[in-house]
């Protein structure tokens, strides 16, 4: 007799009723995994006044939306969210549970995993279904979730498997899973969840909350012009902005440029920043640490401009320009203006 396996769940992150991109990316990935396993893709949606989110989730591929609405779930605090998700897990026994590796996801997922005594793998960059032969413990597992993530500061890529009871839990980096086009003809089933919380779940009080949406959405950019330490100064970043404006691109940066204070962290590409996959990535004065490359090496085309012919970035670039960006960038601007 084969054991019936549970469904694929995605924790849906929302702010004021707007679903985070990473959650929709995960719904699309969840759809792919669920099809492979022959199970359903289900969304776990918590907050207050969420009706507007439901159709969007169907259109990206959810079969079911578990919706928990309660004033005490808005704004997000970790304890009541963990409580509601735990009770849903106990009742429905999902096979896989995915969270975005965001501030909220990385705070919430471990709290839930600890209580459930489930394995949790952080910051995955790829997920696959495969069998696992545990040679050490002489056990075989079929149809397990291969949880692929960088480790050791991005210097290695590890494939990790959760061998305990379900759910197999992961957090997944933003921007690494492809978002498919929504299909508005798709429909699903809405399951309203009763929210049962006691006083101990609401002891954390939000006294003040100040936030604004990111000034820039690098994840969605088609063309990115990025500057690194080789740009030399905050003033010189104007060159990067000029090229970006000419090409209709967004501006990115390496960690070195962000740490130097030349540009805001929202622009940082790489392991501790955003993962991007634009159709064109122009790396200006970026040496190409593994941490940076991990966040942009899926770009369709990469142009690297660097004075150092041995810079690692040149080994992943499609076009390498060994030269001074102060001379190369104005030439690019002029060439594009002449053509376009």
């Amino acid at each position, binding site marked *: 007799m084969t054991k019936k396996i549970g469904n694929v769940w995605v924790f849906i992150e929302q702010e004021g009723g707007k679903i985070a991109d990473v959650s929709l990316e995960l719904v699309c990935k969840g759809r792919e995994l669920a099809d492979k396993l022959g199970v359903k893709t289900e969304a776990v949606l918590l907050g207050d006044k969420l009706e507007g989110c439901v159709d969007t989730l169907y259109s990206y591929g959810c079969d079911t939306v578990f919706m928990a609405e309660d004033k005490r779930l808005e704004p997000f605090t970790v304890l009541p969210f963990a409580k509601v998700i735990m009770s849903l897990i106990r009742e429905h026994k999902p096979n896989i549970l995915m969270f975005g590796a965001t501030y909220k996801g990385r705070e919430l997922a471990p709290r839930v995993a600890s209580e459930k005594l489930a394995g949790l793998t*952080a910051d995955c960059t790829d997920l696959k279904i495969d069998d696992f032969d545990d040679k050490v413990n002489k056990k075989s597992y079929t149809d397990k979730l291969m949880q692929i993530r960088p480790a050791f500061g991005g210097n290695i890529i590890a494939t990790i498997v959760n061998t305990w009871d379900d759910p197999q839990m992961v957090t997944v980096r933003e921007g690494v899973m492809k978002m498919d086009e929504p299909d508005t003809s798709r429909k699903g089933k809405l399951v309203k969840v009763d929210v049962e919380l006691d006083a101990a779940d609401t002891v954390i009080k939000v006294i003040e909350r100040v936030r604004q949406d990111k000034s820039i959405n690098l994840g969605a950019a088609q063309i990115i012009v990025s500057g690194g330490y080789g740009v030399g100064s905050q003033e010189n970043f104007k060159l990067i902005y000029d090229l970006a404006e000419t090409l209709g691109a967004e501006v990115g940066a390496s960690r070195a440029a962000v740490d130097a204070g030349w540009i805001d962290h929202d622009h940082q590409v790489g392991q501790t920043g955003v993962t991007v996959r634009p159709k064109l990535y122009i790396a200006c004065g970026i040496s190409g640490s593994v941490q940076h490359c991990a966040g942009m090496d899926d770009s369709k085309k990469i142009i*690297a401009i660097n004075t150092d012919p041995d810079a690692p970035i040149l080994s992943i670039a499609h076009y390498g320009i060994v030269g001074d960006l102060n001379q190369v960038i104005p030439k690019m601007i002029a060439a594009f203006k002449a053509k376009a």
Partner: protein
Amino acid sequence: MSYTVLVFVKQVPDTQNITGDAMKPDGTVNRAALPAIFNPEDLNALELALELKDRYDVKVVVGTMGPPNATAVLRASLYRGADECILLTDRAFAGADTLATSYALSCCAQKYGKFDLVLCGRQAIDGDTAQVGPQLAEKLHIPQLAYVQDVLELGENKIKVKRTIEGGYEVLESPLPALLTVIEGNCPRPMNAHRIMKYKRARTRSELANDHANANYTDAEFLAEETENLRAKNLLIHEWSAEESGADKDRIGLAGSPTKVKNIQSVILTGGDAKSVPPTDAGIHDLIHELIEDHTLG
């Protein structure tokens, strides 16, 4: 009112300053080539605890789980201002994933006894998971406040903190005891010369035994006496094995870890077929032209 603050820290290989020989040819990590350092965000957590000690009646107790030589980070904590240290060390703890680690640390906290706050760095640079803090909070059944920048107020049975959220910040209030994960931001104080002079002699019982291993006067009675001497001078670093910490052996180390590593690949940046573009007007003109032609640009 007086408070006890537990700070959990980790000794990690310095993955941020990787050199060429950090990876072996077979793709595994050459730990010997990487210097062991105090995990950066754990230093921020220690600094936050020491700032609380500057402002309130606070005792700072630093704990770590690791091999015997992880005492280096404990002594470094004493040099900066910690009051007491605990080394959780046992071969049985080895191979722990974040779940087994958080369980072991929860045993350590519970064995220590009463505490008001637990502080951890948000994440360690060898794994970057940020999971142990929240998992430890759950194991201790206390609230967690993640990504803390600063403590605004510590009061009778309550704490108010400022913490980072996506695109902004929050001020949160929680009852005590609570666990805080601390992000980089504050400026960890340097080691204090007077404290170095005093605490460089701080030892665990195993280190004490090693110090005297080759001496012909060493016997159990002598070591017990020396241990008491250190304790009297507040120079004894507690050393707890798995059994002493009260941990269930099925929940620690490899046995207590649900996640298994299937394989590891080293990252080799490939491409190789890069087209070299000369930095001349003509070269760049041709490049831009090619990108417009294939609809990458324009």
